């Protein structure tokens, strides 16, 4: 397939793999975090770990939108659907995220709540237009990639006077999460980042510059195709070997330093920073998420239905927090693969195929045999 096959060429991958093996210093290890779930998925699905020398280790970061969604946020959506009779629309993976009382949106749906899986915010608007007598809320999750479409939907709802539409805003910010990972006392053992692909098309490469300048961590922005990831790893190894810490862009076909200014303006018009937001795994992180501006308060489901956020602690045995920070690997969690499986996820990392645990369970389990 054109524009796809070029980035999945096995021969080219072998060349890059050979270069990484040749250039990686056998006397040291390279601990590289791929921030995005999209990269985690590509690494697992294409078996890229087999193309890396043992001393180049990939650590799966928190960039999977459903994985960082805390229990309390899902509870909020479930309450909205069950107690207020709202039609709750959301992106597909979200319906499986475990919530309180052994529920998830999918189970709430089986119990009678009206939960709809959608592909686009436009679908949510359509549900609202098609059900004028019902209230329709969109559980808006995701990083900077999915934020502009939510902003568009809110503006369209305002322009068309759609009064039965609102959003439960759980949009979060990538740079804030990277700060949270790096700002751990005593430092973290991460030598560099494979930077986000789609997020960076929106925000550009500029917001990552503090990670290179202030924390001394190289960042290479990479596309989600396997060759993109391989090339980014090679670029990181080179930066580390040369003692450089810069923001480099492997994904030049889509990402500029400034990003998509129009999308940024739109987001700034509709949303403002929340003071704090609780992340699964990272805890409460300041200035790390968005909420609707006052002008759009009529579309804010939290205000409209008075469903406040109640924090709920994660399952004690679940190691999602340490895994999302790159401190532990999925197989080091006691309940991985036993109590917690893709069929019955306890922690959110087991929910999406982009989550570190689900990716390892579904694609990489054979590696544990040895």
């Amino acid at each position, binding site marked *: *397939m054109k524009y*796809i096959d070029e980035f*999945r060429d*096995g021969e080219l*991958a*072998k060349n890059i*793999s050979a270069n990484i093996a040749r250039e990686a210093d056998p006397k040291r290890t390279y601990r590289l975090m791929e921030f995005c*779930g*999209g990269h985690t*998925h590509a690494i*697992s*699905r*294409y*078996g*890229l*770990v*087999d*193309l890396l020398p043992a001393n180049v280790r990939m650590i799966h970061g928190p960039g999977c*939108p*459903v994985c960082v969604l805390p229990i309390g946020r899902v509870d909020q959506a479930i309450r909205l659907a069950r107690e207020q009779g709202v039609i709750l629309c959301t*992106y*597909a*993976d*979200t*319906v*499986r995220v475990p919530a309180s009382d052994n529920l998830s949106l999918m189970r709430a749906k089986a119990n009678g709540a009206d939960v709809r*899986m959608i*592909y686009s915010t436009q679908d949510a608007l359509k549900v609202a237009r098609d059900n004028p007598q019902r209230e329709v809320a969109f559980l808006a*999750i*995701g*990083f900077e*990639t*999915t934020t502009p479409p939510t902003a568009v939907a809110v503006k369209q709802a305002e322009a068309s006077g759609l009064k039965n539409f609102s959003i439960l805003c759980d949009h979060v910010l990538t740079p804030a999460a990277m700060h949270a990972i790096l700002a751990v006392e005593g430092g973290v053992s991460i030598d560099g980042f494979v930077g986000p692909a*789609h997020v960076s098309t929106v925000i550009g490469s500029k917001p990552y510059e503090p990670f290179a300048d202030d924390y001394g961590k190289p960042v290479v922005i990479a596309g989600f195709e*396997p060759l993109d990831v391989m090339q980014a790893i090679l670029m990181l190894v080179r930066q580390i070997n040369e003692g450089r810490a810069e923001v480099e862009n492997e994904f030049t076909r889509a990402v500029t330093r400034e990003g998509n200014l129009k999308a940024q303006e739109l987001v700034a018009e509709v949303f403002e920073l929340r003071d704090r937001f609780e992340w699964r795994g990272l805890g409460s992180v300041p200035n790390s998420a968005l909420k609707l501006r006052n002008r759009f308060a009529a579309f804010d489901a939290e205000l409209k239905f008075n469903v406040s956020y109640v924090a709920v602690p994660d399952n004690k045995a679940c190691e999602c927090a340490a895994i999302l920070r790159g401190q532990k690997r999925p197989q080091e969690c006691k309940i991985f693969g036993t109590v917690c*499986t*893709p*069929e019955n996820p306890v922690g959110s990392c087991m929910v*999406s*195929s*982009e989550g570190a645990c*689900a990716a390892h*369970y*579904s*694609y*990489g*389990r*054979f590696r544990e*045999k040895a």
Partner: protein
Amino acid sequence: MSTIKSNYTRALDIKHGRVDMSHGSGGRAMAQLITELFASAFDNEFLAQGNDGATLPQANGRLVMATDSHVVSPLFFAGGDIGCLSVHGTLNDVAVMGAAPLYLSASFILEEGFPLADLQRIVQSMAQASREAGVPIVTGDTKVVEQGKGDGVFITTTGVGVVREGINLSGDLARAGDKILLSGTIGDHGMAIMSQREGLTFSAPIVSDTAALHGLIATMLDSGVQLRVLRDPTRGGLATTLNEIAKQSGVGMMLHEAAIAVNQPVEAACEFLGLDPLYVANEGKLIAICVAEDAERLLQVMRAHPLAANASIIGEVVQDAHGFVQMTTKMGGRRVVDWLAGEQLPRIC
């Protein structure tokens, strides 16, 4: 003078009529629906017996029986409809057991308000599929449920076939060293349905591969190769079916991604929706596992048949206490090809 008419006073209004509750009540309306719509289309000597069940001649050999319910939405899709699908699906389940299918039954659950014109289209498609396969629909049933309690029409078909002496196929017979063959591209049926549901259009439309495989299977059985397992990778796709076989046989498998063909529009649609073609349904493909020495010969036999022109050897059965199905990727890596967890949901970014 007698005014008794031998037929119904008014023929079914197929063009404008709709199914109503009386069509399932057991009365005259139901009899009329059966006569004018079903019996005339399926017409065969066994159905013509007109009894509650069909009396069938004695069969020689072990009997195989399989049943399958069909609830597909949309009912009509590129490459087929629920009618021919309900015939092919059950025929294939019988045929992959190594049996020659002989008879089918068909049971309909109709939703009140369903257009008779659509019903006729479906029934005629079933009749054509059954005629082409040479397997008559010998008995059936019709029920009507209230509006909102069904999704237009559900069809359950049951098939009976007979296995001749010397043929023994089963999911627990795969052995380390055996080769795994696939009859063609994967994901065509599932993506035809999905792209229609989501309103996706491509320059080359995605067409369901729904087809009856018993002809292909007969040539494979006649070729004399030592077959161990045949199975059609329907729901859950190739990945799920291979995991089922691995579990039944207590073996592992090593597949080779480069040998698994995917039509380009299917690949594009999967990319677009975040789906993996390995988990997408097929309705006209089969997996064959045979002893290694016979694999090349089986491949030639399959490729000579129009329904398996793109057949390939996609991997081998290996010893593995964990029963993992693994795959070498085009990138030169290795991954597990796991059971499908839940429904295959699209990823969001």
